[in-house]
């Protein structure tokens, strides 16, 4: 109630003022009348009454204070004054706002990313928590499996467990886009998918139960909101058709705005019903190509459940155990040792295993936030220095205020208000920068990626609060100390013109300005060295040396299955393509491979020597099992096509390339050979792996040992590779590698149309996804683009920080030196030469710089050691960059000492002494 009354008083300020005035007037009149009644003169009575009342204005002030109005009066005054002051010094204000905008902008941008990743509630309104449902093999430490449709139905039927259960999996489909084919990600879902998430559709309807039934093959699709927008965004889109993998699909719905499934950043282009699963999924995503989704032995579905309101995942564990046990009893062959578990929904990936997002995200978040915070600190320190410098000229102003009775608290409040205004203006500019830059980033990535990004750059209340929080924080850092310093001015001393601030014998004072300088130098150095670390790591990764040259060669990526061709016909297409390519005179070698270095897809298996199967978690696993070896199916002469030679043994022959059936021969790389066979020759030995971790191992004879190839951009050394003939592990979406006899890059470029035509002549339906030189692949690669963007960002970070530091150092040094003007005047008057005086000043300035930079170097080394694990081939001390930074900062400090000192010696000594 009190608060409401206060508010009312505040809003009706003028009326309250008026009332107080009238009330006082009434009192005075009554008093005068009383005195008159007692016999005093009328005029006198009035005057005495007023005098008796005391200073009316003072009483009014007290009354207003009692009503709580003075606080607001002061605030308004301070704001007005602050704004006027900033307007009168446009240069200072502009620089300060820019610095703050950069610091706060960076932090807000980082925070908005963290917000989307971690904090923002998911864009659906399910009543009840949504979790991932996983099927764990209890006899192994870390083994999970997807679900079969029958399993799914069974679990869905147990309504005591979940309030809703949905299933899905992803696929890559080819969307006809004019005459091109675009490869996009689609989510194949059951009918209750959108309902489970509680996300209403923007238009149309969800899938029906008939459409969900595996094998129903009813060609319908639901578009995502961004896809719908790109296609015109009109509601008459319902009923139109779109060609997916050259088949017509009818659009029956549009998903809700902002809804993209369970992933944080990414929206699938469209949704499909599980009924079309068998024909729409291509080889890579298919769980098991020999069975269909409806078969009980096909485990392809990933499940998500909505828990009943108020139930937690933990509370359901006993019921899940019971359900798992009964499922095992009903079907021991399939479900023995299986336990149904629940886990939080991953934001970064979809998989059969419970997500381990938390650790990765936590690490990334902390790193990003810290770096951004350091930038803000540097900016604040900068600003503090500038304010300190400026406060020197305002000493007299505050001395007068304090002398006539102002309270120090009031002075501090005013200065903090000025600082806050500055911060808020800078913050608003920073917010604009943040929004603009994140939108730019998303737009750039969206152009290259096969998915839409759902990143809402517009700020929600969390981001706005964060921005205001950053403003306040930086105001406190840069405003408080100078404010208290100013408020602590001794008015007498200041008015007398700093008579007491004379030269002392000590050269170097650990006063506030010097502390700020040192702090700024140290922090800037740390920031720059961290940026350099990342920069180096990024450029090393981006150099993208996969083990073979990317300067020459052509790659063609195609996927006949997207054109509706059968598997048999697809094989033919590849064979014909290879034959015709090899027949061309301008082609030296041509081959095929299922994956390409730095590409987005890869297949991993656990390799071992032939013999008894070893599983992960077995006693021998550490020494005899090479986990996560990349399996690639390649054609004959693959390494030759890449410009490499096998180290021992041979390449695959064309017969082996064509043969179908499980692989009988294999080529392994040096790393794998060494781990499995040590120094002995691997050629002629046998190796094996179990497809998808289960079932009979496939035994192969090693026919060749190849050099290592780096697939993963961030790996520090080549991963182990095993190669099998293309025909035995056929994938429809593969890459043709061509080594040409062309003599220049331009000549190679001109071969591309001919190659496209060659494939079109074989079968016009085949979509060619990419046909480019390896050089342009390297340049246009998405991940490379991201890494390079990151590198560029860090460079900008570093340069900005360096500039800010240099400017800040200059500013405060200039201020410190200007305080010694008087001393300089005295020295000159006493006969010192200008040069000597300047040298003294400069020499003194060196101490602060050296100490600051020294501390900065130590901190940089520590941070570098801590971060070594994070960066690719990170080096704890990056000499070159640090040297540059040191040089720049030191010169700035020296310059800042030298110039003002020199200027001071030019002034007439008498004037300088009076200063």
């Amino acid at each position, binding site marked *: 109630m*009190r608060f409401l009354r*206060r508010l009312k008083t505040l809003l009706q300020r003028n009326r309250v003022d008026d009332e107080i005035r009238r009330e006082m007037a009434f009192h005075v009149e009554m008093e005068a009348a009383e005195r008159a009644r007692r016999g005093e003169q009328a005029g006198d009575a009035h005057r005495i009454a007023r005098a008796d009342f*005391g200073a009316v204005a003072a009483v009014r002030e007290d009354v207003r204070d009692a009503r709580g109005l003075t606080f607001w009066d002061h605030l308004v005054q301070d704001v007005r004054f602050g704004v006027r002051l900033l307007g009168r010094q446009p240069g200072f204000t502009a620089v300060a706002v820019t610095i703050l905008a950069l610091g706060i902008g960076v932090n807000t941008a980082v925070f908005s990313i963290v917000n989307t990743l971690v904090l923002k509630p998911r864009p659906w309104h399910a009543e009840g928590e949504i979790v991932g449902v996983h099927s764990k093999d209890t006899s192994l430490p870390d083994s999970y499996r997807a679900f079969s449709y029958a399993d799914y139905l069974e679990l869905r039927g147990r309504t005591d467990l979940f309030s809703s259960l949905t299933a899905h999996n992803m696929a890559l489909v080819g969307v006809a886009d004019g005459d091109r084919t675009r490869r996009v990600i689609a989510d194949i879902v059951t009918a209750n998918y959108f309902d489970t998430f509680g996300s209403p559709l923007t238009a149309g309807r969800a899938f029906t139960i008939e459409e969900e039934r595996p094998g129903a093959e009813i060609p319908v699709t639901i578009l995502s909101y961004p896809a719908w927008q790109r296609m015109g965004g009109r509601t008459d889109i319902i009923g139109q058709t779109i060609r997916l993998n050259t088949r017509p699909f009818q659009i029956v719905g549009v998903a809700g705005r902002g809804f993209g499934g369970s992933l944080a950043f990414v929206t699938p282009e469209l949704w499909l019903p599980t009924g079309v699963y068998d024909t729409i999924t291509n080889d890579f995503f298919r769980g098991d190509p020999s069975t269909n989704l409806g078969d009980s032995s096909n485990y392809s579905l990933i499940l998500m459940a909505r828990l009943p309101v108020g139930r937690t995942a933990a509370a359901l564990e006993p019921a899940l155990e019971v359900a798992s046990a009964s499922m095992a009893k009903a079907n021991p062959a399939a479900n023995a040792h299986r336990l149904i578990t629940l886990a939080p929904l991953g934001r970064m990936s979809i998989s059969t295993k419970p997500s381990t997002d938390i650790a990765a995200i936590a690490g990334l978040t902390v790193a990003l936030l810290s770096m951004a915070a350091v930038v803000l600190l540097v900016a604040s320190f900068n600003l503090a220095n500038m304010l300190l410098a400026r406060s020197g000229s305002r000493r007299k102003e505050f001395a007068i205020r304090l002398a006539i009775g102002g309270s120090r608290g009031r002075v501090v409040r005013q200065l903090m208000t000025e600082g806050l205004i500055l911060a808020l203006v800078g913050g608003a500019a920073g917010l604009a920068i943040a929004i603009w830059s994140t939108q730019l980033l998303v737009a750039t990535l969206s152009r290259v990626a096969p998915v839409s990004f759902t990143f809402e750059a517009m700020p929600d209340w969390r981001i706005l609060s964060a921005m205001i929080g950053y403003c306040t924080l930086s105001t406190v850092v840069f405003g408080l100390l100078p404010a208290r310093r100013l408020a602590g001015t001794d008015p007498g001393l200041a008015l007398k013109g700093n008579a007491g601030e004379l030269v002392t014998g000590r050269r170097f004072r650990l006063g506030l300005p010097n502390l700020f300088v040192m702090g700024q130098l140290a922090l800037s150095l740390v920031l720059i060295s961290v940026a350099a670390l990342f920069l180096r790591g990024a450029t090393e990764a981006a150099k993208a040396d996969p083990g073979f040259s990317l300067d020459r060669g052509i790659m063609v990526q195609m996927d006949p299955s997207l054109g509706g061709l059968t598997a048999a016909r697809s094989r033919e297409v590849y064979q014909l393509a290879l034959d015709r390519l090899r027949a061309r005179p301008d082609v030296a070698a041509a081959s095929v491979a299922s994956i390409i270095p730095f590409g987005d897809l890869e297949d991993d298996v656990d390799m071992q020597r032939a013999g008894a199967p070893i599983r992960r978690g077995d006693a021998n696993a550490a020494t005899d099992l090479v986990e996560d070896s990349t399996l690639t199916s390649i054609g004959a002469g693959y390494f030759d096509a890449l410009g490499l030679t096998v180290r021992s043994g041979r390449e695959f022959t064309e017969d082996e390339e064509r043969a179908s059936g499980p692989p009988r021969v294999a080529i392994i790389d040096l790393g794998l050979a060494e781990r499995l066979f040590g120094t002995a020759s691997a050629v002629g030995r046998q190796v094996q792996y179990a497809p998808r971790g289960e079932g009979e191992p496939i035994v192969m004879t090693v026919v060749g040992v190849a050099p290592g190839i780096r697939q993963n951009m961030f790996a520090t050394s080549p991963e182990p590779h095993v190669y099998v003939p293309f025909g035995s592990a056929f994938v429809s979406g593969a890459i043709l590698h061509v080594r040409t006899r062309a003599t220049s890059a331009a000549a190679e470029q001109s071969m591309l149309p001919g190659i496209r035509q060659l494939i079109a002549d074989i079968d016009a339906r085949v979509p060619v996804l990419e046909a480019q030189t390896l050089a342009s692949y390297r340049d246009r690669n998405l991940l490379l683009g991201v890494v390079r963007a990151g590198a560029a960002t860090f460079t900008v970070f570093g340069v900005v920080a360096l500039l800010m530091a240099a400017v800040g150092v200059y500013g405060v040094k200039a201020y410190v030196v200007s305080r010694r003007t008087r001393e300089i005047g005295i020295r000159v008057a006493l006969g010192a030469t200008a040069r000597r005086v300047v040298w003294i000043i400069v020499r003194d300035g060196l101490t602060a710089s050296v100490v600051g930079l020294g501390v900065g170097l130590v901190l940089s080394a520590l941070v570098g050691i801590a971060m070594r694990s994070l960066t690719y081939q990170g080096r704890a001390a990056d000499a070159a960059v640090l040297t540059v930074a040191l040089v720049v900062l030191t010169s700035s400090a020296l310059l800042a000492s030298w110039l003002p000192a020199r200027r001071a010696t030019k002034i007439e000594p008498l004037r300088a002494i009076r200063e």
Partner: protein
Amino acid sequence: MAGKPRNEKNDLLQGTLDLLILKTLALGPQHGWGISLRIRQISEDVLQVNQGSLYPALHRLEEQGWVAAEWGLSDANRQAKFYKLTRAGEKQLQRETEAWAQVSLAVSKIVQAT
């Protein structure tokens, strides 16, 4: 002069003034002038409330909700601001009266101690 810090005033005196005002108003609604007159009259000219203290106190009491104010006509047909006691104010009056009793008893004990 900017607002005097409130805790400069003696808390004891401030509480007593509040008590006097509340008690006076318990006898009936009154404007500021009337309150100071009444206090002077009832105390037989011993207590003369300083106007510089009276009005800040009145407004503070109003802010805290213990008195409510209304503009009305005085005896002399002038516009005046009348204060009256609220329900919460009655309770506060009771509290202050009890507190005053305790304090004055304690002071008497000390003064009369031998």
